[in-house]
């Protein structure tokens, strides 16, 4: 467990809390999964958050008030997430809660945010985090939902003229909520799911499932999971001599997938945020400035890729800063600001339009399709 806060006790008393009047600092809590299975997500989110904190404070804070972000690691565990959320809200009296990286952890925190009436912005995929909106009054999220990703995939399939797919998902939260959306949207996009398979993250071989999908006359394989499962799927598919297109999820939008699957990765297609390849984004894209400046700042500081997850971390904190800059400096006001005043707000993930009907505020357009070509992720031109 590692929480990066200096002089915590002191700050707790000084309190940049919900109270009004003379404020010494704005205290924000962020819970990301820096370790544990979700660490590939949490790490860039954590880094991005720190990057912004330093940047803002070096520029003299927000309207002269320094920003203080207390970062906490939930180790990809719901229980830890709950503990940290309670600590940040009650002990640190933060204004806003950011995180967490995974859907399960975010849902766990959601309960507390609702009970304690603290605005929260999640960096996880599941639609349940912000839906139904009536039950998510205090909760927002920036990543595209599984629904968006699935919509984007289905749009692609329609373009390709593929209508029968076999799905293979990781039997964890990410995979199963992907499947949920694929099922829900299938009719709308006239897609038929002819085989539904799953695997456990550590399974060594998925030939049986793939043989079944192939036998079900699917025209494409859609695999929803994070590494290493999809790499095994890609490899097994090619080893079995199955010649179907493989479509992945945004969960493998990283180089490691290609490293693992090697040649079998070639031709795999996924939906992804644009941050996967900033250099390939065209200059007239509205997000161009946001993406390239964040990408540069991040890579300069950390000498690693921010990936899409970095963009969630970035947008989360930037939304809060937007609220603070506009004078929303207590919990209620920040919530109001997020719900009512974020329209056409340009982030690195997409263009946000929050409202009392939509606490995610994105459309499937914020995602693009990418393909592996010569061992690299490339933007798939329409």
């Amino acid at each position: 467990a590692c929480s990066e806060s200096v002089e915590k006790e002191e700050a707790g008393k000084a309190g940049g809390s919900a109270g009004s009047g003379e404020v010494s600092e704005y205290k924000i809590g962020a819970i990301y999964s820096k370790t544990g299975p979700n660490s590939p997500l949490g790490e860039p989110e954590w880094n991005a958050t720190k990057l912004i904190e330093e940047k803002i404070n070096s520029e003299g804070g927000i309207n002269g008030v320094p920003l203080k972000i207390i970062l906490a690691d939930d180790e990809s565990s719901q229980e830890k997430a709950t503990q940290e959320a309670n600590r940040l809200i009650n002990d640190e009296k933060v204004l806003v809660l950011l995180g967490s990286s995974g859907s399960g952890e975010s849902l766990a925190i959601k309960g507390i945010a609702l009970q304690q009436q603290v605005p929260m912005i999640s960096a996880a995929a599941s639609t349940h985090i912000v839906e139904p909106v009536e039950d998510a009054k205090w909760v927002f999220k920036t990543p595209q939902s599984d629904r968006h990703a699935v919509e984007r995939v289905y749009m692609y399939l329609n373009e390709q003229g593929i209508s029968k797919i076999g799905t293979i998902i990781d039997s964890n939260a990410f995979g199963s909520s992907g499947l949920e959306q694929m099922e829900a949207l299938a009719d709308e996009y006239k897609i038929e799911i002819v085989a539904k398979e799953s695997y456990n993250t550590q399974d060594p071989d998925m030939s049986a499932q793939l043989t079944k999908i192939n036998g079900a006359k699917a025209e494409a394989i859609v695999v929803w999971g994070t590494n290493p499962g999809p790499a095994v799927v890609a490899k097994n598919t090619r080893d079995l001599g199955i010649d179907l297109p493989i479509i992945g999820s945004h969960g493998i939008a990283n180089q490691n997938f290609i490293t693992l699957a090697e040649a079998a990765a070639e031709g795999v297609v996924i939906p992804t945020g644009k941050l996967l390849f900033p250099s390939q984004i065209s200059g007239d894209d509205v997000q161009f400035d946001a993406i390239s400046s964040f990408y540069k700042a991040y890579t300069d500081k950390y000498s690693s890729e921010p990936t899409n997850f970095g963009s969630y971390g970035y947008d989360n904190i930037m939304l809060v800063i937007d609220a603070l800059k506009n004078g929303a400096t207590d919990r209620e006001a920040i919530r109001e600001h997020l719900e009512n005043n974020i329209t056409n707000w340009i982030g690195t993930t997409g263009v946000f339009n929050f409202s009392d009907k939509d606490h995610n505020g994105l459309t499937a357009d914020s995602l693009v399709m990418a393909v592996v070509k010569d061992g690299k992720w490339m933007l798939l031109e329409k």
Partner: protein
Amino acid sequence: MGDLLQFTLTGVTIGSIYAIVALGFVTIYSVTKVINLAQGEFVMLGGLTMYSLTSAGVPYLLGFVITIIVVSILGWIMEYLLIRRAKGADPISLIILTIGTAIFIRGIASVVWGKDQLRVAPFTENTPVNIANATITPQAIWVVVIMLLVVFLLYILIDKTMVGKAFQASSVNPLAARLMGISPKRMSSLSFTLSAALGALAGLAIAPIMFPSYDMGTMLGIKGFSAAILGGLGSAPGAVIGGLLIGLLESLGAGYISSGMKDAITFSAILLILLIRPSGILGEKSVGKGGL
């Protein structure tokens, strides 16, 4: 029909992986009566050590040998530093001890190798082989071959040699064993070293198949343990039968029923088999008249 063959080949491959891990359990259990739940971690160490060696440019064969030696030494150390000192603890505590060791090793591994899955090159050129509409990769064949080789050698060692009898004697009655000139300590440390070597071998064999990472041991440990129990604790052929059975149940279950439910299917089947044979498929019913 082609499907059935494919499912069977896949099942045998997965099953062989479980079987090798199970053989590690058997080796240690048959000497010390300890269930070593860190067995999966030996496998993980095997895969990851090989990764480091090959990426450092060590020739493949040399890396192979070094890996086995390094992991064996770790097995020996584990016995010497931990198991030996915990004599007198009851079996449950000993399980916890090995779990503690597993967690410890996993923690260290995550610091040393990071959390990403890694890739290790296969033993040989890995173009899949086609058998009557089903395919199998050469690496999978290697896994099966290694498994068969190991069980054969273990069978000879345990059932046919004096060392095997000494193994058994030290576990049944260490005091009497000492009076026969058998050192239970030596046997215990031999068994840990041997089973660590087996673990390393398993790690080497499956690394090209399943992308080793610091946390792969738990799953392998569970499956290996299940295979060893299903086959009948202490029996090497039993471990193989158990491993293959679990592998086949998984792949046939996934193939014909539901891949989501494959674990439930497999473990329900295990429960059922245990109800019919309470000491596993090849297990001896526990003997000894106790106090009668």
